[in-house]
């Protein structure tokens, strides 16, 4: 009979634990789901920068920052700066009286020098070293003034390096006292929230910085919870365990209509595109690639693969970025089928006959679907598409050797157009130039934009580069993809133009 007693006892314990309501639902902290586990909290060693960005920018500040909901750069720790005529020396003045967290003292020019020079130092082996590629040194003038010395003007300095992760300022004293490894899990910055803990669930807890120099933070505590599975994020949002998370495209309509939640669709910073291999037969034929631009209809891809939620992309860049140029749309309805049949004929493929193309793509459900759609669209013009769905490794091998006619790719971007455009340079053929396209003028314009701080010149050059790509009909921009943040409707969250949460600006 011991059995029965044991059974009753277990049942009792189970019921008792059930009566404790979920702890997370009640505490006063703001819980934000992030797509992946943070890898390190040391800005000099971030590998996957985008998912860590909301956490890092809550703890640290840079000299400059992006203004809320734009990519416009405004002062943050710096009060003002002056660029020399040569563009190789920039004198910054820091705001006075800014204090590091946990009594690590006042922010001075020493900390800035330390933060930047530890990234460019050779033995640091920092993945961010490239962001500062032309920085020679930082020269201290006095406590609040310092000079960045560059070996040549650096285009991306203000658009991407300084306002992004590489430009975040750490406390010199904290890194030296703790050592690099310990600092990576006990970061000390000047930001609106102070690092509190990083637990075994990989949750990162921050508390309010009472002495913050700018608008003070609204929440006593913020918790970042890494949740890789989107369905789990949805369920946790509904059970009240997280306050801000992402929705899946399948359930977006259902949940965003609920009274308790608000949601918005943002474009991602990435670019998804169809690339034509223009280096070999048959797609080295501009007439033919032009015909393909009309035949392949990205709108159908958007409906099938993104549930009609994603917008069509017209550029590698988002419209908010410097140098955005809207590529012309090629719509079959506008020109009529006859026009395309003629293009095919002029290209040497009357009635499309005998044309077989090789298409390589990733071996996942979504990409296979896209491939099947394109196959169907091409078949209407008697063009046969042979699809090869591959794992990443072999796919990259084929990309680099150029053994394909068409491919579908997704490249993650940054806010700096120079970074995003570099993959289509001639020197990238055999690496990441999927068009296998070479254009001397494009290369030169890119190089010129890298070495100027003039926004006007850069903008003009980038527009021209996009026109060059469009003239040669080298591919089709499909979409930037989507981010689908959702939040409890009593919150007022603020996002960047690409839908990344800015936790320090959230109001109740």
């Amino acid at each position: 009979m011991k059995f029965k007693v044991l059974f009753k006892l277990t049942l009792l314990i189970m019921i008792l634990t059930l009566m404790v309501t979920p702890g997370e639902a009640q505490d006063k902290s703001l819980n934000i789901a992030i797509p992946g586990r943070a890898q390190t909290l040391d800005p000099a060693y971030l590998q996957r920068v985008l998912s860590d960005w909301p956490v890092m920018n809550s703890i640290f500040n840079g000299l400059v920052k992006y203004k809320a909901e734009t990519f416009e750069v405004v002062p943050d720790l710096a009060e003002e700066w002056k660029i020399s005529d040569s563009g190789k020396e920039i004198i910054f003045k820091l705001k006075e009286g800014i204090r590091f967290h946990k009594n690590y003292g006042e922010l001075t020019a020493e900390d800035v020098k330390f933060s930047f020079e530890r990234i460019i130092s050779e033995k640091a082996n920092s993945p961010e070293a490239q962001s500062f590629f032309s920085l020679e040194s930082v020269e201290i003038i006095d406590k609040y003034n310092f000079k960045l010395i560059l070996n040549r003007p650096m285009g991306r300095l203000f658009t991407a390096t300084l306002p992004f992760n590489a430009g975040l300022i750490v406390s010199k004293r904290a890194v030296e006292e703790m050592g690099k490894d310990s600092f990576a899990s006990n970061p000390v910055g000047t930001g609106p929230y102070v690092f509190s803990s990083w637990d075994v669930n990989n949750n990162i807890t921050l508390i309010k910085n009472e002495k913050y120099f700018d608008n003070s933070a609204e929440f006593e505590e913020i918790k970042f919870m890494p949740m890789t599975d989107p369905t789990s994020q949805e369920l946790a949002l509904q059970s009240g365990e997280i306050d801000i998370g992402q929705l899946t495209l399948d359930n977006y309509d259902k949940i965003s209509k609920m009274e308790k939640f608000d949601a918005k669709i943002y474009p991602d910073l990435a670019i998804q595109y169809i690339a034509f291999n223009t280096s070999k037969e048959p797609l080295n034929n501009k007439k033919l690639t032009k015909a393909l631009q009309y035949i392949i209809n990205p709108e159908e891809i958007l409906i099938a693969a993104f549930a009609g939620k994603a917008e069509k992309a017209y550029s590698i860049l988002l419209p908010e970025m410097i140098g955005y140029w809207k590529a012309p749309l090629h719509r079959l309805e506008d020109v009529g089928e006859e026009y395309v049949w003629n293009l095919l004929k002029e290209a040497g493929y009357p009635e499309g006959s005998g044309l077989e193309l090789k298409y390589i793509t990733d071996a996942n459900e979504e990409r296979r679907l896209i491939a099947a759609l394109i196959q169907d669209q091409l078949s209407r013009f008697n063009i046969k598409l042979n699809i090869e769905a591959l794992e990443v490794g072999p796919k990259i091998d084929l990309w680099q050797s150029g053994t394909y006619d068409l491919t579908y790719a997704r490249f993650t971007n940054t806010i700096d157009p120079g970074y995003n455009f570099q993959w289509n340079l001639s020197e990238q053929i055999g690496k990441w130039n999927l068009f296998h396209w070479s254009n001397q003028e494009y290369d030169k314009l890119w190089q010129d934009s890298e070495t100027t701080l003039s926004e006007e010149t850069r903008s003009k050059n980038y527009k021209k580069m996009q026109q060059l790509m469009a003239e040669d009909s080298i591919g089709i921009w499909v979409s930037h993809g989507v981010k689908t943040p959702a939040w409890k409707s009593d919150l007022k969250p603020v996002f960047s133009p690409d839908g990344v949460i800015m936790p320090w600006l959230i109001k109740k």
Partner: protein
Amino acid sequence: MLIYLIKRLIWIIPTVLTVLLILFSLSYLLPGEPAEIILGPRATSEMAAELNSRLGLDKPWYQGYLTYLKNIFKGDFGRSIFRDRLVFDVIIEVIPHTIILTLVGMGMAIFNGVLIGLLAANYNNSFFEKFLTLLSYITASTPTYIAGVLLIFLFSVKFNLIPSIGAGDGSFISTAHHLIGPAIALSTGWTGYIARLTRSSMLETLELDFIETEKSFGIPRYYIIYKYALKKAIKPIVAVIGLGVGRLLGGAVFVEVIFNRPGLGRLIVDSVHERDLPVVRGGVLVAAILFVFANLAADISYAYFDPRIKQK
């Protein structure tokens, strides 16, 4: 018994060595250039070279394998590519969560499974037995990930009774509370299996002669069942526990991902996605060792119940 034990322990060595060889060859079997796949376009050639040397790809394969073996036996699992931490530390941190989850899940499966099986055997051929059989078929054929999502939807979203994410803050109540959903989800499949096994084994036992003898002595029915029949009928169940722990370790991967719990399975899945090869190697090795020891424990306990095994 001692000789049997030693024999079994010696067999562990070739098993683990084989696992190590397979894990090591991962970086050679993966098509493509590992540094390029892992680091992507951001990689400079210095970063790629450093990664290759960390993965042992800059040496001929046998040298790389020997170095890898030497390091493993020194307890050095290498350094994670993306975490900037030792693989060993990362694994040690999450492994208690997986062990607790697996043990509690196994405990629930045995407890509920044996209970359902006994009831079904006791009320054989009744309507109640039909119901229990149906129940065990349903649980046995529900995949862990479906059970997990259903549990979250029902008990977290609808009734708000159990938390759907994490492993709690470390206190006993919180840990237990966070374990309910995952452990039930994990145990469902195995519960049905054990219930069916218990029922058939029990029915077989109840027809044996010694039970008839005991009945004729006038010993009460429940006493016969619990005292004599159960001890014999439970042997096949003990034998499958080792197998079950292995299966549950596999199921824990789904549960850990769905409930966002820290654990070995989740660690391996995340690392596969990130292509953090040193962590994948270390995690799979530890999982394999756990599996080997679970099987060993099952064999030993089986030998305890069946003395004939000891003599072989």
